[in-house]
């Protein structure tokens, strides 16, 4: 028996515990973490909307892909183009991996956004972006799935402006709503988040 202080064995035990604790505290830093706000992984109820370039978009047809949804309108000169340009950059940064990403732009202005306008508008940003339109009630059902708000706003010279949700929604390969990216996310953050989701396997 030693008097007072730690024995050699006690040093080893306490030292070992300390090392393990430090290592454990570092684990979260090593695990992939998202920039976007995470959801509870709920599966998105399947929906179908007409595609601006013809045919019908069924969410379930894109199982296995990461699906990025953005809600906007073609008469929006500032916020929507900023987000769409960022998404285009993300697709470029993903290079070959972008093949597994579907980006869809859902109109919040069915009265003015004709399919032809949407095709022209989206081609300008990225030819792979899909425009979705439809009757106001069928669009509303999709807005509701994502808690998207659309409000008719004040008059502008070309009619009216619309107030609308600016976030981008990301659905994983298994059809689960995973992320909500806020407007103004730094360039590259979306790319980082999509890379993590693309590494996951679809079931």
């Amino acid at each position, binding site marked *: 028996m030693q008097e007072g202080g730690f024995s050699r064995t006690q040093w080893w035990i306490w030292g070992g515990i300390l090392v393990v604790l430090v290592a454990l505290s570092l684990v979260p830093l090593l695990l992939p973490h998202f920039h976007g706000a995470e959801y509870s992984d709920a599966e998105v109820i399947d929906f179908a909307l007409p595609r601006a370039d013809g045919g019908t978009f069924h969410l379930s047809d894109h199982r296995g892909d990461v699906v990025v949804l953005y809600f906007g309108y073609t008469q929006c000169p500032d916020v929507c183009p*900023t987000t769409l340009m960022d998404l285009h950059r993300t697709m470029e940064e993903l290079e070959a991996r972008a093949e597994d990403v579907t980006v869809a732009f859902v109109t919040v202005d069915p009265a003015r956004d004709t399919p032809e306008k949407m095709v022209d508008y989206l081609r300008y940003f990225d030819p792979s972006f899909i425009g979705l339109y439809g009757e106001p009630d069928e669009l509303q059902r999709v807005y509701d799935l994502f808690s998207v708000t659309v409000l008719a*706003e004040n008059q502008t*010279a070309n009619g009216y402006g619309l107030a609308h*949700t600016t976030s981008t929604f990301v659905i994983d390969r298994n059809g689960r709503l995973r992320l909500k990216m806020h407007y103004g996310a730094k360039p590259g953050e979306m790319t980082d988040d999509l890379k993590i989701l693309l590494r996951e396997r679809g079931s």
Partner: protein
Amino acid sequence: MKRVWWVVFVCAALVLSACNAGSDLPEGITVEEAWIRPAPMGGGVAAGYMTIRNGGPGDDALIGARAEFASEVQVHESIVQDDIAVMRPVEAIPVPAGGTVLLEPGGYHLMLMDVQEGIEFGETVTITLIFENAGEVQIQAEARRP
């Protein structure tokens, strides 16, 4: 020796004229880094962005604009609050004396309506800004893919 004095005289004249050119700017308003994001399609809307500096002694405000390539230009502001984007026309963007105002994505911007088709990236377009005190200021803005 005479020649040296000539050189000094010419240099002084150049410096003075440069100073004059500076003070010729309307009420000290200068615009830098002006660019537009061209409309994705003919008849579409485009946004104009820039940095406005007021080097003059008095406050001023941007109250309007026009451009030949657009049917109308409005001064707008985007506000993103609680995840909702609202865009509204504003009557004036104040440019205080000695101050700088940014027109940038997601904030103040020019909204150019019914824009002519075929503006290429890299092309320069002319926009006339209208200030409360400085009056009209013509600027060149580059069409960019930001």
